[in-house]
């Protein structure tokens, strides 16, 4: 049953451009990008137990580095992408060392502070980043000579990257490293007593999450062909965090659902409802009250209950 549902979903996703207009295909691309970003954050929040409010740093860093290299220094997209990801990983490594000195609210605050410092730099160093005007006029890459300019071709590109990201993150989470991560999340002292190195496990996860955040940043800048400091802002990080929690941080697919929810409310429902912000807040309240662990766990409990039938 599950396989049929999964196959149907995969088919629908793959065939979206053939039955939906450009607008919806583009919306699909945006959801895929947000999903990768949310999934990368969930490695930290759900599986690592580290709530971060600065994840947009990695999205923004990769996006800016790619934008600068391609528009100002004439790099090709391939080398630019590699350098962007490398730079983002280095930054994540460095930030991780600082942030992991604290936990809980302190960790949240450090990640917030670091992302704000990065935001301030992006804003202020207008000689490099063009400050508030952002960097425009960017192009999309042409992998194997295929142009990504049409909505459908970009969508399929994003779908391929997203599927790969999902797969890699699923492998990570279900591997023995993933188990040790969950162990560190739940019982750090016992894990240490057993000979694991909680700090190292957390730090590696932090960097890995940053890596995928960077990947989503590249897709982001390719899609929008524009980057602005607001993409690094706390609002951006907060929206992702909200999506992760709403969707279900304990699951692999939950954050994607949550990210889609936030995006749809912001970009789609806002056309129909003026007070969409209030609606977003009410939806969150509703989710937490009715499905405290998130949408996906809540729905699967519901489905299981329905299947069990009336007792």
């Amino acid at each position, binding site marked *: 049953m599950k396989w049929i549902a999964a196959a149907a979903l995969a088919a629908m996703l793959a065939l979206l451009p053939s039955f*939906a*207009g450009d607008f919806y295909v583009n919306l699909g691309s945006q959801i895929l990008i947000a999903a990768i970003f949310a999934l990368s954050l969930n490695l930290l929040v759900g599986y690592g137990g580290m709530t971060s409010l600065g994840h947009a740093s990695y999205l923004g860093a990769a996006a800016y580095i790619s934008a600068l290299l391609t528009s100002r220094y004439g790099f090709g997209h391939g080398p630019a992408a590699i350098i962007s990801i490398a730079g983002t990983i280095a930054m994540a490594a460095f930030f991780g060392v600082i942030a992991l000195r604290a936990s809980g609210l302190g960790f949240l605050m450090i990640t917030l502070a670091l992302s704000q410092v990065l935001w301030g730099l992006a804003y202020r160093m207008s000689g490099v980043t063009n400050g508030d*005007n952002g960097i425009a006029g960017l192009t999309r890459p042409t992998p194997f000579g295929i142009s990504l300019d049409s909505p459908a071709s970009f969508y399929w590109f994003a779908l391929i990257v997203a599927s790969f990201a999902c797969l890699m993150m699923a492998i990570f989470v279900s591997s023995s490293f993933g188990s040790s991560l969950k162990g560190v999340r739940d019982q750090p002292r016992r894990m240490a007593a057993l000979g694991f190195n909680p700090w190292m496990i957390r730090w590696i996860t932090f960097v890995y999450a940053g890596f995928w955040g960077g990947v989503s940043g590249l897709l982001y800048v390719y899609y929008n062909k524009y980057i*602005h400091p*607001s993409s690094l802002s706390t*609002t951006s990080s907060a929206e992702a965090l909200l999506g992760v929690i709403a969707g279900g941080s304990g699951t692999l697919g939950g954050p994607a659902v949550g990210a889609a929810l936030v995006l749809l409310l*912001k970009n789609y429902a806002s056309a129909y409802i*003026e007070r969409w*912000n209030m609606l977003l807040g009410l939806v969150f309240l509703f989710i937490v009250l009715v499905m405290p662990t998130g949408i996906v766990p809540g729905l699967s409990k519901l489905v299981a209950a329905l299947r069990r039938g009336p007792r």
Partner: protein
Amino acid sequence: MTISRRQFVGNVAGAGIASMAAPNLLYAQNSGPIRIGMLAVKTGPLASGGIDMELAITMFLKERDNTIAGRKVELFVADTTGAPATARAKAQELIEKNNVHCIIGPLAAFEALAIADYLNEKEMPTLGVAAAEDMTQRHPSPWFVRLTSTSAQCAYPLADYAAKELKYKKIITIADDFAYGHEMCAGFQRVFEDNGGKIIQKIFTPLTTPDYGSYVAQLKSADAIFMGYAGSNGFRFLRQFVEYGLKDKMAVIGGMTALDESVLRNMGDEALGIVTTSWYSAELDNPLNEAFATAFRNQFKYDPGYYAGGTYVTSEVLEAALKTVKGNAEDRKALMAAIRGNNVDTVRGVVKFDEFGNATGNVYIRKVTRKDGRLVNSVIKTYPNVSQFWTYDKTEFLKNPVYSRDYPPAKNLEQ
């Protein structure tokens, strides 16, 4: 007749998929309505402007019974939330989902920059409100016109006025630390110093400044302070300025959004006598504006300002262009040519476009006075035919880099 659950779900799903596919069907003839899209900021700190934009255009359309050039008009207002990525998403929504014929907006400079290439690619006539200089200077587009002004365009006449008629010698400039503030202060500085004045201090406050007290305390002694603010921040700064007793020590002058009518209505006597500049004032005494401002005030209980006035002017120009093309909004090239080619008489005066798509027209120096028990921006001087290049040679102007925090360099700053 009962519908089984499967049928119902099937129908809903079918309807959903059909509605997603609908945009693939072309709107064939000209018999449908003219669809106008608006990109406004309706939530967040810039919301005040976006709300005014929507009010003005709804009023405009209602006055004309939602009909322009013989065709019905459908308006789609999209909330960009002041974020560039959302602006792009909303622009896509307007163009791809709502199939609009033209777009009014966006409001903020960075929003305009984020979607410029997309609008160009889609050949979408865009009547912008955002003031970013380069949109009509070094990166113009045949599909973009702006009916308000560039950031610095209105600052030039004020600097001229301040130097020649108010006879100020030393001025401090203060504005929000983003492109709009940088460009406006740069323009002011240029003309003021060309006329013998000195800018002795240039301050840019971060957009999120909780307490302006520490900036007020940094101000040196000068003849006047020029406020390049927009939105809430100018209001908040001015309040602190007055609280520290500085209103008696130096005059206050401001740019086109510093003491906008929508902010002025919440102010008191501390605003009296402040001189600002703009391409509009609710007090303009041409017949078009008298009708507009009175109607706006009656309906919404406050005077129209930059955003409401700007949107109304935009609507007037769009209407004239649609009439010129006899309602054929589908022919975008013709529509764009009509927009750019007409010299329309609007509530701000006659509007002409220069070759970059920026409006050239009157700029008004205003002073805050009390009239009929409310604060208004009374016009005290009109500078006719002000272009975005002021009196500078266009080619020389464009050779220089765009105005920024450090360009033109401020040479007279006191330490």
